[in-house]
């Protein structure tokens, strides 16, 4: 099922949470809404679900205008960050609930409901726990029950609100891989909200990066990572270092020092962004030269903080942890890949 969000605006008590947002979600894709807290990502998800009504704008499910439909009629599956399981029901009853509450005309027979619920518990690898209560399960298991419960109603769209936010790192990684598998097997159009860029980059077909109630950029994880369209996206997705530079006759300058990067268009002050690992160490004069301010090893890399231009600017670069340059007190380098944005 395609979902089209068209010029949607949402205000809470006159406080705008979303400004004029439009987003097309293709059928069967797994898309991540990514952004810091307060960026409006959860609000957008809840608007798609029908848990909130838009102040203006429309939401289409396929060709059908869903804006006026309430949450029950939209037939969506929703997974909450804190599971929201029914604690007085067994796991099997939780998963069956969506089918049990259907009106008599469309409700499957009792045995059929049981069978489907068991099938779903099998899909989420929880067979054998049917008779348990939610309080007897671990966080990861609870979230899998929540997913099975959402899938039971054969939703047109699956919506997940920070589904792994309350779990510890190990379980998160496992569930992430597992969610991808489930998605590939069932083929539901899936939208999930996260503030964890690693999760979004690993899991999603496409990212929708949001900030302050607006969509900053939509694209595949690789294109968003490699070609960020705004300073916000560059800073939010992946690591970044930034320097105020000047463009003059096709060369980049930091103060009176050339960076050894040429063939640049434009003229005047600009903001240079680069990834800490997208650099090369050089011995030439035409390069950035910095004094090592601090250096610490993070797993297989060494992160070095450099002071440039007499401690006016600080940038971070990554070296292999056993690189001899890590011992020096001064390092010269040049960004291999970089992007210029207008000066702030």
């Amino acid at each position, binding site marked *: 099922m395609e979902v089209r969000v068209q010029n949607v605006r949402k205000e809470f008590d006159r406080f705008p949470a979303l400004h004029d947002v439009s987003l097309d979600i293709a059928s069967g894709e797994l898309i991540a809404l990514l952004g810091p807290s307060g960026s409006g990502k959860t609000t957008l998800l809840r608007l798609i*679900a029908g*848990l909130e009504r838009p102040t203006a704008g429309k939401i289409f499910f396929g060709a059908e205008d869903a804006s006026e439909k309430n*949450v*029950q009629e939209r*037939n*969506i*599956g*929703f997974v*909450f960050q*804190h599971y*929201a*399981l*029914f*604690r*007085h*029901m067994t796991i099997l009853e939780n998963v069956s*609930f*969506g089918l049990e*509450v*259907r009106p008599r005309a469309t409700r499957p027979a009792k045995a059929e409901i049981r069978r489907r619920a068991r099938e779903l518990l099998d899909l989420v690898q929880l067979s054998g726990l049917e008779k348990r*209560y*939610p*309080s*007897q399960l671990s966080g990861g298991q609870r979230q899998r029950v*929540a997913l099975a*419960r*959402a899938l*039971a*109603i054969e939703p047109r769209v699956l919506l997940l609100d920070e589904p792994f936010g309350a779990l510890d790192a190990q379980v998160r990684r496992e569930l992430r891989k597992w969610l991808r598998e489930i998605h590939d097997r069932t083929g539901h159009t899936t939208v999930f909200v996260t503030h964890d860029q690693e999760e979004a980059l690993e899991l999603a077909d496409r990212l929708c990066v949001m900030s302050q109630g607006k969509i900053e950029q939509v694209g595949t994880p690789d294109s968003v990572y490699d070609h960020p369209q705004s300073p916000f996206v560059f800073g939010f997705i992946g690591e970044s270092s930034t320097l105020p530079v000047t463009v003059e006759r096709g060369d980049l300058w930091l103060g009176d020092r050339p960076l050894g990067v040429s063939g640049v268009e434009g003229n005047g002050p600009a903001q240079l962004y680069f990834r800490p690992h997208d650099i090369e160490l050089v011995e030439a004069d035409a390069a950035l030269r910095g004094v090592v301010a601090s250096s610490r090893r993070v797993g297989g890399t060494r992160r070095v903080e450099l002071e440039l231009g007499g401690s006016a600017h600080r940038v971070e670069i990554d070296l292999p942890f056993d690189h001899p340059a890590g011992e020096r007190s001064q390092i010269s380098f040049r960004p291999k890949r970089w992007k210029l944005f207008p000066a702030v």
Partner: protein
Amino acid sequence: MTRLGRFRQPSVIPGFGLTFGFTLTYFSLIILVPLVALVLRSTGLGWNGFWAAALDPRVLAALRTSFVTALIAAGVNVVFGTLIAWVLVRYRFPGRRIFDAMVDLPFALPTAVAGIALTAIYAPNGFIGQIAAQFGIRIAYTPIGITIAMIFIGLPFVVRTIQPILEETSKEVEEASATLGANRFQTISRVLLPSLTPAILTGFALAFARAVGEYGSVIFIAGNIPFVSEIAPLLIVIRLEEFNYAGAAVIATVMLAISFAMLFVLNLIQAWSRRRYGYGS
């Protein structure tokens, strides 16, 4: 001490011996000793004398009035107390805090004052009593009046036990129910109320216990007609005024036994549902 020692787990929580000893002593002095004295007093009549006093028709009628009205009052309180708790927790409206504070008034008011106020309203010439009289219903001086007084004093117990549990039950659970296609009625009857069951039971038990023991507010509105609107606590006072201390103790012992049995069963049900639902997690 060696037997106690077996319960004694190594623990960083301080003062097990001291606090446990204090608890036992205090519990004995405040609750156990008076109750035992009560039972002993009632046995002073001997086996036959005890049953003669307990099965006296007037006593039986008073016990029935007390327990039936208390059960009805607790039942009514559970329904409307739950509703009030739900409104207070889920909605924000002007004056919410004032309503919230007013719920506690029956706790604070001297019960005799409440009784007089209720009688003034529900007596045949009172504000509501007049209206009811037109339909041929007498409220004051009948079990209906007793029930109303008991509802009044029992309400805060129900509201105050359900409120915190409801606050803890996240709105997300209701939203989850809606996303699964449940309508409002199904969400309330199949999701919200069952998850409140333990709290509702506790509220019921408290309101019931309070209503059974209530004296001050009831006697004014009850009219205290033997066999009709005489409650057991009043009969105890009457026996005391007749200097029939053993007779009073017999009625009290019977009340104690029935109340204890009922509260014990309610507690068992609660413990069972708590184990099932992993209460509070």
